[in-house]
């Protein structure tokens, strides 16, 4: 069975790739992913503004109260450097490349023009095979238009893709006025792929304390539908390598992603829940499914249920939406409040 796939110009032994998560913080953890059968590894995200913020805050707190009172002109031994920088991250890339055979995809997370290009170059120099740009931005200013938001994404991708030679894929959220147009623009700006989607940070309310509390919950298979939908729509039109992210929990999810047209299926929640070794089960599960359905390769099924290739493409569009809503049966009276 040929499980290989091509993603961002790289040949992967199979399409299952652990997504960027805290599971990939050490060379040992990366090794476990490879041993479990991952097609490639994605490192945890280097947060561009966190580096800057951390540095500033360290400076602030270490200086706080200094040079104010005769007996305590400082409170800490002078640090060699406040600047954490990406050194540790780069070291992880280097060690990963030394010890792994599968491709190493670095992940850079940020929101502004900031230090993207500088960090991207350093990541490239450290040996990463590809770079995933995770752009997470929630616009709260009513004066900013959707065009301006799209333009910000385009500028970031153009800057980074122009600065490095390694392939660049872009991970974004689903909430855009015209995702196809954005995808087209990103492609034209130099992106090689898109990862659909990053998880929308939805804080919860604590009604007793009346405070907003950060809360990140693991995904479920149900959430696969959104990226599935969009990959199926976009993969026909735009020459980008798509990765499905969010909701990949079992072999069927992987199969769906491939059929929609994705080149890889990435997962994190299920690995956080079941351990990295679960990658192996996904790989063998995929293989079994392919065999039982008499496929000979992953490539054979990739895109087989994209927008263009399904029997009823309107299922992806508004017509189907109306139909579904109108046919949705009302609940029985006993369940009404």
């Amino acid at each position, binding site marked *: 069975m040929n499980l290989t796939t091509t993603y961002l110009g790289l040949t992967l032994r199979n399409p299952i790739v652990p997504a960027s998560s805290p599971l990939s913080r050490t060379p040992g953890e990366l090794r476990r992913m490879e041993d479990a059968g991952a097609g490639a590894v994605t490192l945890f995200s280097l947060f561009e503004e966190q580096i800057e913020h951390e540095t500033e805050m360290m400076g602030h707190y270490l*200086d706080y109260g200094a*040079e*104010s*009172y005769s007996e305590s002109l*400082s409170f800490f031994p002078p640090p060699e450097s406040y*600047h954490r920088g990406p050194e540790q991250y780069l070291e992880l890339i280097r060690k990963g490349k030394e010890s792994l055979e599968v491709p190493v995809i670095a992940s850079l997370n940020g929101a502004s023009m900031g230090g993207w290009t500088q960090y991207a170059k350093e990541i490239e120099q450290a040996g990463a095979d590809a770079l995933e740009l995770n752009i997470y931005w929630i616009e709260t200013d009513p004066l900013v238009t959707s065009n301006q938001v799209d333009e910000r994404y385009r500028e970031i991708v153009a800057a980074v893709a122009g600065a490095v030679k390694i392939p660049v894929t872009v991970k974004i959220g689903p909430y855009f006025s015209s995702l196809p147009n954005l995808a087209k623009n990103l492609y034209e700006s130099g992106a090689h792929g898109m990862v659909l989607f990053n998880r929308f940070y939805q804080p919860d309310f604590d009604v007793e304390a009346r405070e907003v509390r950060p809360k990140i919950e693991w995904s479920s298979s149900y959430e696969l539908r959104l990226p599935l939908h969009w990959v199926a729509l976009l993969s026909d039109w735009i020459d980008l390598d798509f990765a499905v992210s969010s909701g990949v929990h079992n072999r069927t999810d992987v199969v769906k992603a491939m059929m929609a047209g994705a080149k890889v299926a990435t997962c994190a929640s299920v690995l956080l829940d079941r351990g990295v070794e679960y990658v192996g089960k996904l790989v063998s599960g995929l293989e079994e499914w392919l065999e039982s359905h008499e496929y000979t390769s992953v490539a054979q099924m990739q895109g087989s249920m994209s927008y263009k290739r399904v029997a009823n493409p309107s299922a992806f569009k508004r017509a189907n939406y109306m139909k579904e809503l109108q046919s949705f049966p009302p609940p029985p009276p006993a369940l009404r409040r």
Partner: protein
Amino acid sequence: MKSWITIDGNEAAARIAYRASEIIAIYPITPSSNMAELCDEWSVRKYKNIWGSIPVVQEMQSEAGAAGALHGALQAGSLSTTFTASQGLLLMIPNMFKIAGELTPAVFHIAARTVATHALSIFGDHSDVMATRSTGWAMVFGGSPQEVQDLALVAHASTLRSRVPFLNAFDGFRTSHEVQKILEIPDETIREMIDEDLVKAHRERALSPDHPVLRGTAQNPDVFFQAREAANPFYQKVSDIVQSEMDKLQTLVGRSYHLFDYVGAPDAERVIVMMGSGAECAEETVAHLTAKGEKVGVVKVRLYRPFDIPRFVASLPATVRSLAVLDRCKEPGAIGEPLYQDVVTALVEQPHRNRPIVVGGRYGLSCKEFTPAMVKAVFDNLAVESPHNHFTVGIVDDVTHLSLDVDSSFSAEDKDSFRGVFWGLGADGTVGANKNSIKIIGGETENWAQGYFVYDSKKSGSVTVSHLRFGPNPIRSTYLIQKANFVAIHQFGLIYRYAVLDQADIGATVLVNSPYQPGELWEHLPLSFQQQVIAKNLSLYVLDAYTVAHESKMGVRINTIMQTAFFALCKILPPDEAIAKIREAIQKTYGKRGPRVVEQNFAAVDLALAALKPVIVPAKAFSRVGMRESVPAEAPAFVRDVLGEIISGRGDQLPVSAMPVDGTFPTGTTQYEKRSISLDIPYWDPEVCSQCGKCVLNCPHGVIRAKMVAEADLIGAPSGFRSATPKFRDAEGSRFTIQVSAEDCTGCALCVEVCPERDKSDSSRRAINMNPVIEITDEQRAAWGFFQTLPDEPAMAEEPIYDNAKSIQLLRPLFEFSGACAGCGETPYLKLLSQLVGDRLLMANATGCSSIYGGNLPTTPWAKNHTGRGPAWSNSLFEDNAEFGFGMRIALDGQRQQALHLLEPNRETLGDEVTDTLAAPEKADEATRRKRRACVDELKARLKGTTRPDLVTLLQLADSLVDKSVWIIGGDGWAYDIGYGGLDHVLACGKKVRCLVLDTEVYSNTGGQASKGTPRAAVAKFASGGKPTAKKDLGRMAMTYGNVYVAQVALGAEDSQTIKAFIEAEAHEGPSLIIAYCHCIAHAIDMQRGLDQQKLAVECGYWPLYRYNPARALRGRNPMQLDSKPPSRRLREYAEREGRYRMLMQSDPAAFEELIQSAQTDVDDRWAAYTRLATTQEVKK
């Protein structure tokens, strides 16, 4: 090639000490701590000494410990040194006798500091060094950073050659902290000065089982004396050795030193003899006077011990007729101070041919200013026929009239020098910028340069004054600038608080950070300011630094902005060059923090230049704006006339008669020092408030107060005074009120963070909210004033039980408005203590943060209630605090016993009720206490005027019949380290003493050095790589006695548990110990989140809450109660929110991972051990 460096005296000494030593055992003490910290820093960076090894720097538990370790290191053959001062040096005395007695080469570097007498002082004089005169150590004194460096090397070289140990002493702060441009001694020179044969000889004398000897014997009367004299030849050679080393140094570096260096007219008739930094000022004055033809001079004593009589006499000019010997110390009861006595003896033993008159005088105690005018006064005294002897200079002694008159208009300042005075706040970075500036000028120009920095005694809102001199001539002005040609006011508000232009010379330039534009400024200036600008023809410039800081995203850091303006105005460097140098300095200072910070500072430089504007000064002063009163006019006379003067910066002018003779001061004085330091203050919203009391409980500064008052009491309340219907039982018809003393608030916002309530329609608002305040309004003042007139006793049908935050908020705190850091984690515990037992509290307070914000002049936060009762407070030392408090306890117990014995025999006189009430065992409740107090009053009334000896005694001891509570308070440095032996002993003695450890986990007051309370993995000074060992479990050690009440508390995590612990500790019939978690700025946290950190510390199991109450065991129950839940988080979650841990995460992630995992094991093990203790069924019956 000569290498110039701009460093302070401490660094000058440390550079030599580090290079010439192998073992450095230390204990932090101001002002010497920096020397040890620098050595530790160099050791961590793997800098090498002259033998190519990295010196070992070891922090010990006390100076006594450091001296002991050094003694051992020396005996084992290593070259060893230490740095200390004051009490620290005194703790080393026993080992100093030993080290000298064994003829062991060693050098101690001493930033000489006042020994505490009637008061502690961290500032410099020679009382500590003089207290070691009999130890047999040689002593050299330097007067400037250059001399300190040079003499340090002479000392290291001489000790090896003479085998006599040396003190390298210099003036604490005045020299230790004065930044000067000096010539660096290169390592090659140090190598040339240190004779390797002598090093070899030292090693050969070391104890070794390979060639065993016995040292440290006990000797009997038959031979001890002879053996003591046997060392004489070594001392006889010291002088020659030191001079020869000085000569050798001169050949190597060109700077000449002698045991006694005379400077002045060759035919001088009047000569001053002195040592230390004052001699620099004397030399400057002598140069000024001799230029005018006066025949004066000064002998600078370089080697004080051994005192070389022939060389001293030879140093005096042949023409001398009178000598004034100046000592920077006081020896009460002596014929004269030490140097004076030595000089007199010297001239008796080897008379000078002129037989000059010799007088002695004291100057400069505790860094009191010593100026050219004072030097001139000393010379003037020598000019009269019968000069005053045993005089003082620099103060006005209107009691014993020993002080010399000083013509304060006299100045010897170098006219060619630039003299700049900079007023700022600690928080605005003024000092840091000035240190930078002086290094730029010292390093980049041909000028000589000097910087000296004066700090406040407050830890929040502290004022700093920087004094910068530079110019073409060497700077010997070891005193604050008196005639400044540049004055910068970095904080506009200071204009209203201090006479900031008093030092401005005619024609000086004045730079003001002003929120007002040039055209608007004048009308906002006080009249006296305007008058000085006009009268002195000052050039005025303004810059709105805060706006520039905001625009350049610098927050409130205005340092770079004001520094840029300074360089633009002082013109020491061509403008472009100056800016380039500032940029270099920015890169050097902030480069570590990443490109964004550097860019922000660069932007600030550009914006600052554009924003700097001259002010057209009107011809007339017409302001109606006045200076702010330092204390209100209605304050008590002592507060107004003495403390008020100190607050205003005029303490130097107070005469001797103004001061208490024995260091006793009134309490409750912070209430008069309205500092108005916060830009935001809390506002109470009665509609949202649940009256839980948490804001009142946690306010570190006692500015949020609650009262329950009768409605009738509110008649005439000013507008803006708020009250609410009480949410209390037994308070019908009363009103509940919370008031904020806006002028005392530091703006820490802990009150807001801890408030559990939310506005029902706007969850961003709580029951207490911070709002910006431009100026404290009359309405706010009136509301606070009115609040203070309301009765303290709660207007309730039944007085509540004070065992929770809600009721305790109604108790008047007797600890208020301290100068502790904004958001301090220690002070809420002290405030709580004052609420619970304040009216019967005796406190022994170990030296540290709590003794500084508790007892540093001008004011104290310890206060009195409406009956005049309140905490009586004292600080003895750092190391002896438990014993000090214990002494109070046994004295009170003894007095009470004596008084009790006198009751029954005098029943007839006292009456049955008084006798029976007072003879009965005292219950610890308020009603009993009131009754006993009434009986004591009755007893006193009945015994008034008695002459019968037993009744006179009873009358004297009557107050002891109402029990007092003795609390022994200090930080972890005291309890875990230097005072641990005493604390342990006191706990073991079984008396009713209560010990409170305010555990910040470092030596906070002296700048964050590690203690045994520092947790594993946290970075602190002397634990740069993260503390490798676990925090000492002090509580568990105390539990082993079985009869000690022990509690571990964290107010921010569980206030009810803290309150219970305090109440139980107070009630315990034996010793008690409370260990309180105190968040601190030395944790590098957002102080506003300090209480959250306390909570996290508990939730992760790092800080388990428990109470170990032996009284429970007597009832057959397990004494140990674990009050916190099992850990629900990992230690990492807590640690990663603190800079002290994050530093290690950044600098050495692998080490952090290893240490944090070990620390997690510590937490797990400790929790398991406590759980076992709390669940064991085996208890005492």
